[in-house]
């Protein structure tokens, strides 16, 4: 599995008629292949910027990102991306959405048809292949997005608040699916979220990020994701260790929020 390496990443946005905004300042880390990293932090801490730099959508103003030693200069099918919502192609059916990647890479139809069927089963959408994506519920649409991303067999999957638009119950179910896919495929996953509970539950590693300038404030190695599928999720989330870590992280983020409010007044 390829290792993901960020070296002294910096990202400064030039704002017309104003101070330049430092979205990322000196961010460095090493992520071994096959880990699930969650990025957590208050708004404006640069977590989505970091994700977009790693995905190759943005070029950093300093430093660089490397996947398996190769510098990242633009988007590629080695790095899949799952967005919060609205990134599915409405004019295509579910199956056509999933086969989009293989088709763009000129894979022959006979070869990807089987992949599509397997993926539909993996994400629990058997028999939905011919449906239009706008006919599906929000949770089902995110299942399609996950399957579409997996169809290219990428090395890394980036997820930008993939479950952020779902209702609480669907969200818990989908967390299970993310964990399941991660464990079955053994892929490297980087997931951005606003929810402390989600970051703790899904992350086998977690960065808490802080704003002004955007940076990694604290790193955690977490035990919960590895046993997340074996234990009842609600039980795990109610365990003393989970609650202790959750409160610690929450108070850290509250402090940051207060600083932002204080700073802006």
């Amino acid at each position, binding site marked *: 599995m390829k290792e993901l390496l960020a070296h002294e990443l910096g990202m400064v946005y030039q704002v017309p008629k104003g101070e330049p905004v430092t979205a990322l300042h000196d961010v460095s880390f090493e992520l071994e292949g096959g880990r699930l990293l969650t990025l957590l932090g208050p708004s404006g801490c640069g977590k989505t910027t970091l994700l977009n730099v790693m995905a190759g959508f943005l070029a950093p103003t300093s430093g660089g990102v490397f996947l398996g030693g190769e510098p990242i200069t633009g988007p590629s099918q080695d790095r*899949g991306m799952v967005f919060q919502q609205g990134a599915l*192609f409405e004019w295509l059916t579910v199956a056509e959405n999933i086969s989009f990647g293989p088709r763009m890479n000129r894979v022959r139809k006979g070869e990807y048809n089987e992949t599509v069927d397997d993926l539909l089963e993996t994400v629990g959408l058997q028999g939905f292949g011919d449906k239009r994506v706008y006919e599906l519920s929000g949770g089902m649409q995110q299942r399609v997005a996950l399957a579409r991303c997996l169809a290219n067999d990428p090395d890394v999957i980036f997820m930008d608040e993939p479950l952020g638009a779902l209702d609480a119950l669907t969200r818990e179910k989908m967390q299970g699916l993310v964990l399941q896919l991660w464990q079955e495929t053994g892929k490297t996953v980087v997931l951005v979220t606003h929810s402390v509970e989600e970051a703790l539950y899904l992350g086998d590693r977690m960065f808490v990020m802080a704003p002004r300038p955007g940076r990694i404030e604290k790193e955690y190695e977490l035990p919960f994701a590895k046993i997340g599928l074996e234990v009842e999720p609600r039980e795990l989330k109610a365990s003393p260790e989970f609650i202790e870590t959750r409160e610690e992280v929450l108070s850290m983020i509250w402090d940051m929020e207060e600083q932002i409010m204080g700073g802006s007044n």
Partner: protein
Amino acid sequence: MAGGFGEGFGSGVSDGATLGLADKVGPFSGGGGRFKRRSDNKTVTFGDSSAVHSKPLWSLLALILLMAAWYLTTHAFGLPGDVIDAAKAEDSRTHAAAVEKHQEAVDAFEVELAAYEVEAEEARAAGEDPPDRPDGPGKAPRKSPTSDKQFVTACNADPDCGKEAYTQIFRPTQLPTPRDTWNGFFTLSTVGFRNITIWEHTRVSLWRVARGMFFGTIVGVPIGMAMGLSSRLKSLFDTPVELFRPIPPLALIPLAIAFFGLGDRPAVRLLIFASIWIMIIAARSGTQAVNLSKVRAAYSLGASKWQVLTRVVLPNALPELFTGLRVALGVSWGTLVAAELVGTDDGLGAMIFAARQFFRTDVMVVGIVIISVLGVLMDIGLRFLEARLVPWRGKG
């Protein structure tokens, strides 16, 4: 509140049960009162746009009212005696007299011609030059109004022919009655006007619109999409587009005639001018409306720039392009008729304009109705296509 009784009973049960109960409770329930209860149980409908939907009977009523207004304004109802039939009888008498007079002239001419033949034969036998023929230009009645239909056709060559007869039925200051219009339509669709049937006029007009829209679209859409994708091209095209767009195509008719002459060419080019700016703007805003996430998703799935353009940006812009097509079609249709009024011999606009010279208000009204109906049909057709081709519209 009238519905309180029924509602109170049914509140713990399902909707269907509430309704069933309310229907049985009688005068005290919402269902049995003076007002019929709505099936969706809405208590607020005034101001709720979702409660406003089409009622076919009311649409039919509007159509009936329109026809009634037409009948009334043309005095087709309620006049003592049948003025129109009297006028028609008078007309056919006048016409019969005209035919008779014509026949007399023809007979007289034939006698003259026979005399001439004899004279010419004698002259030839005597070795002299034969005299001038009596049927030189302007000398002989060559047109023979033998039937009503042919009479209409015969008038094509001579603007003054039959003027009096027709003004008696079709008063130019008054709308023709629905019946006259229907008769006019029948004549137009079988015999035609100026030797061209109404179907031919319609076909010519539709074909012009089709060509204008086609070229306006295939030129306008790429330009609009380029404007939505590149800052340089946007800035380059913005000025001309914004300057040309407000020019009403009608203002260009004289110029178009001066440049391209009369006939098909100026009409079609005007239609291209009418539709191209609309399509450019539709394509531009459709392209700019693309969700950045979709584009990024496509790139990270391995799509090339060209693939992003053809597989993401273009299909994503389709709903806006359809809106553009519908607007352009409306504008083109209006422009076409005006262009045909001046510059062409055929087409619905030309037919309407030519009918003016003969005071044929029935022909004018038939043309106007056809233009209206075709405009509606084309819009329905496009909406149908839209529902088939962009079913995700408004659901994305």
